[in-house]
């Protein structure tokens, strides 16, 4: 007879034992302590431009194009956008773009610019697909570019990078409710694992509370893009921006509730990347006001 799995509670947060409790509660095991001793490092780039959103919060496409190009050059170290894209994907790749389709969706202008950039880099247009949806979509792709929009989520704390692939599971309801900590599991599915060449977060107008349904009280113009190849590191930076923004409200909005368990689980349980700020090298470019980092 096996012992029941321990249950993660508020007390684990107070004790600082969330990582161990997550592993135990999800799998009945303690995460490998040896792995935590490995030297890890991930880079995340953030670029902002005060003029990215104009009147009525309309996207200035020319400004966004400059932001995207600069971000790619800085992140990849290449000298042209074409070289930058080709350092991430191969000309014969079938590239799936995975945007957030609704409830504070990814700006269509960003998706269009990414697609145009890939075409300009030599990827045939018919090899670039909308991969958001059922499992057959990522399965048909050899490379994925995650394009989530930044938002807090009432059920998972944050609903940005990790949650963006939920439909790839084929059973999104398996990751609802108390099972949302397991979202990282989806990134290790054979149809997904190793395919994500870039995580590019639309942080133009994020939502810092009450998501995913839009509540304009908590939307603000951050005018930013966030990029990296480590989904957990990118999510961690996205989370930091959300948490810092919440502190700016009168009296503060308090910590995210429920806490974003999926982020630490993606690191400690699913080994997708690092959620440790000390292991993330943040490079910021452009508009510095209210950077929140």
């Amino acid at each position: 007879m096996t012992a029941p799995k321990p249950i993660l509670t508020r007390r684990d947060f107070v004790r600082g034992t969330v990582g161990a409790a997550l592993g135990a509660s999800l799998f009945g095991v303690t995460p490998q302590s040896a792995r935590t001793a490995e030297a890890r490092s991930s880079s995340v780039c953030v670029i902002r431009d005060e003029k990215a959103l104009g009147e009525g919060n309309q996207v200035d496409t020319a400004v966004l194009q400059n932001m995207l190009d600069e971000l790619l050059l800085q992140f990849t170290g290449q000298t042209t956008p074409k070289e930058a894209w080709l350092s991430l994907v191969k000309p014969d790749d079938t590239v799936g773009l995975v945007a957030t389709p609704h409830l504070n969706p990814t700006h269509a202008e960003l998706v269009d610019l990414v697609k145009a950039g890939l075409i300009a880099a030599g990827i045939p247009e018919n090899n670039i697909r909308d991969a958001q949806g059922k499992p057959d979509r990522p399965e048909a792709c050899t490379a994925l570019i995650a394009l989530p929009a930044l938002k807090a989520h009432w059920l998972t704390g944050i609903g940005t990078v990790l949650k963006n692939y939920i439909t790839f599971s084929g059973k999104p309801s398996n990751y609802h409710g108390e099972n949302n900590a397991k979202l990282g599991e989806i990134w290790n599915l054979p149809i997904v694992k190793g395919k994500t060449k870039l995580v590019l977060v639309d942080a133009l107008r994020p939502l810092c509370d009450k998501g995913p349904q839009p509540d304009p009280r908590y939307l603000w113009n951050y005018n930013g893009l966030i990029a990296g190849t480590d989904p957990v590191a990118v999510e961690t930076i996205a989370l930091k921006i959300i948490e810092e923004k919440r502190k700016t409200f009168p009296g503060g909005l308090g910590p995210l509730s429920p806490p974003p368990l999926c982020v630490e689980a993606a690191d400690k349980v699913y080994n997708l990347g690092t959620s440790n700020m000390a292991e993330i090298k943040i490079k910021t470019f452009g508009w510095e006001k209210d950077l929140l980092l």
Partner: protein
Amino acid sequence: MKMSCNASPAQLPQTAGPWSRSAASQHWDAATIFEYINGAGEMYLAYRFAGLDVYLYTAPGRDDILVEIYEMKSPDDAFGLLSSDWGGDPVDLGNQPAQDPSGGRVPPHRALYGAGLLRFCARNLYGRILAYTETPESKEAVLSLGRAIAAGQENPPPPQWINRLPLRLNESWRLKPNRVCFFRSHLILNSVYFLSQKNILNLDQACEAVFAEYECNETSATLPPVKALLIRYPGADRARQAFQRFFEAYLPEYAANRPGDLSAGFQDVYNIEDGWVGCAWHQNHAAILFECPDQQTAQSMLQQVSGEIQRVEDSHDGS
């Protein structure tokens, strides 16, 4: 599957200022709500949800106005949805309760507006009306639509279970009305006060629960608020099962000493990492206090809330 709606629970005007709506609404039920709001449907299913009607108002040269009318199975459920967030500016839609039998335990308004979004309850309806771009003109249209939906839908008093919350604990700890939330699901509890990823209190739609915060009004104190959780289970057996699960999950070091027989009721306090926890169980009722600053305060507060949950239910107490 998306369906058009033949009979909306509310009568909406064809126009609101320069905005006009399409003839039919989109209707969603419990089986299809995730097709409309994947990732947020649980919030409505956590209460007793009957259906959702969605209307889009459009106007040339202006951003759209989205009207969502959630039909709940009781006014308590519509109230519960509003109570998860008391932020925003109070608005009178003309359907305020005639009096407040809660004695000030919750804010008096049932409609709140902020930055283009109106949220309100109207009898068993919960409404969200969102102007994607806020202007004086769109605000007036949003409010006029809210008034149209609320017309003739006078709000009843808040859920009776809320009245078990003391207005003060130990004299110096005062209830914060804007931190009172009525709910039935651990998912909602976790959104206002995270307790556990699992449903360790065995909550479901047959339960009534209220979460509240009490702040210390002694000026020299900088103590965090005490959190109170009062639950009414549908029966004593359900309460006893929840008692057992809560101790095993949240207070495992004390679980071995918990009584097996709750017929005479139970109350005790425990010291954990973030303060003292007080627990009281009586028949099908439970009260739990979190983050009490010390043992004496916890015992005193628990004595008070324990008395409230032992109070015999009368005909005005909603059972």
